[in-house]
């Protein structure tokens, strides 16, 4: 089996995507962060580092909460998607 990218893996999942964004980051705080834990702990690649800036997209979020636990800078305003929205596991 060839390695599959996270994006291709997420494409087989069922999501009920909400128009509301449930996680927000404070990019100014991220600018000062020295470890960028979020990009390593997010299993869905929602956090990306490009040109020294952290960007976040909530699509594909598996709602595991790892980013919120790992971020010790208070840069993440973490909530869960509205009930009924977000990841919907078919197997689990």
């Amino acid at each position, binding site marked *: 089996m060839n390695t599959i990218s996270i994006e291709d893996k997420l494409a087989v*999942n069922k999501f009920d995507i909400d128009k509301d964004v449930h996680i927000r980051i404070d990019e100014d705080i991220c600018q000062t962060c020295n470890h960028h834990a979020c990009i*390593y*702990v997010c299993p869905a690649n929602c956090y990306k580092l490009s040109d020294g800036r952290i960007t976040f997209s909530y699509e594909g979020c598996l709602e595991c909460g*790892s980013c919120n636990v790992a971020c010790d800078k208070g840069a993440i305003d973490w909530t869960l998607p509205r009930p009924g929205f977000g990841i919907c*596991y*078919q197997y689990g």
Partner: protein
Amino acid sequence: MEQGFDAIVVGAGPAGCACAYKLAKAGLQALVIDRGKFAGAKNMWGGAFYGAELLELLPDFLEEAPFERYVTRQKISFLTVEDCLSIDFASPKFSQPAPHGFVILRSKFDRWFADKAQEAGAIVAPGLGADDLLWDGHRVTGIKAGNDELPASAVIACDGANSVMAQKAGLQTELSPEDMKQGVKEVIELPREVIEQRFNLSGREGMAWEFAGSCTQGLPGGGFIYTNQDSISIGIVAQLNALVKRKIQANDLLEGFKSHPEVARLIEGGKLVEYSGHLIPVSGINMMPELYRDGFLVAGDAAALVLGTGLILEGANFAVASGIAAAETVIKAKEKGDFSRESLSTYQKLLEESYVLKDLKTFKKAPHFLENPHIYNLYPELACDLARRIFIGDGQPRKTTWNTLRGSLKGKASLLQILPDLWWGKGAI
């Protein structure tokens, strides 16, 4: 709501469903809510359920429950980049007198369990999430869900690893990455015959398989494979802070694990049908919050009631057992008409009498011990090296096994390094 519920159970995982089922059976007005579109929609795990609780609680379990297979083989493997040394335990005792372990996919199972709670008389309301608690002074008097306020004599937080409820109740503080592991998993579809042939199974027989060593590249954690009926679950569990320190994603570990020669052949030709991720609280009693306050109880992962001994990781049975204990406590409280902290302290006593807190106390030192990197690199290396020396001759005259072991150790570790691990491990796992 015209009048409040006796109990509102937040979360319809194993803890919440067991709790609501038990409450409803006793005739209490119980509401169980879940933020998933249906119960189970948000839940993933390894996984196998071990223990007799479900069989005892649900008389129809064996006939009706949508489990995948019985666990009839338990395998443990130590991996190096190339090698794999395994212990493969098969025993009729696994299913006698009754099956002891069940391989389960959560989405189907949790929905079935919630339906059982509903049949028992609980009000099951998926698509509803608790945002906050209602208070009267120190007493929790219900929950807030969206724009609605729902009063109840008791609220039972069964909302899993990221328990917002336990935090809002002031019982759990912020979670720390040292106390959490992350699990990522793929469900890979394969024809039933292929699964049975590759894993040496037939009928509803199933395998639970844990891996330690190169699959986590030396990070605290491990790999796992469970056989479902028409798919296999394969995943990695890794300590959250270790991922950050190593600057690696759990998915990279999973990809490496899947490409190990012994693993790749098991999933070859399979089709990925789901990719999932979840947190597990792993510090057991060391991170356990206070379990109750006035009008409020915490059960399951929300209370960090998970046992990890290195060889096993069990949480669902602890969730069910604690959910039942919470229900029994609330049933008594209702009889007395007293939901105060004092009255709910029965919960702690029930858990202390059961294996839940006994096991967590027995393995109190395990979480710390399991951070020892030797377990994930040195020992798998040593074990495989020893096997290599024993099984693959090099044309030289043979040595006694003891001397072979010494040969393996040479250059890798000294007894002085290993003895403390043994000493420490003796008390921890």
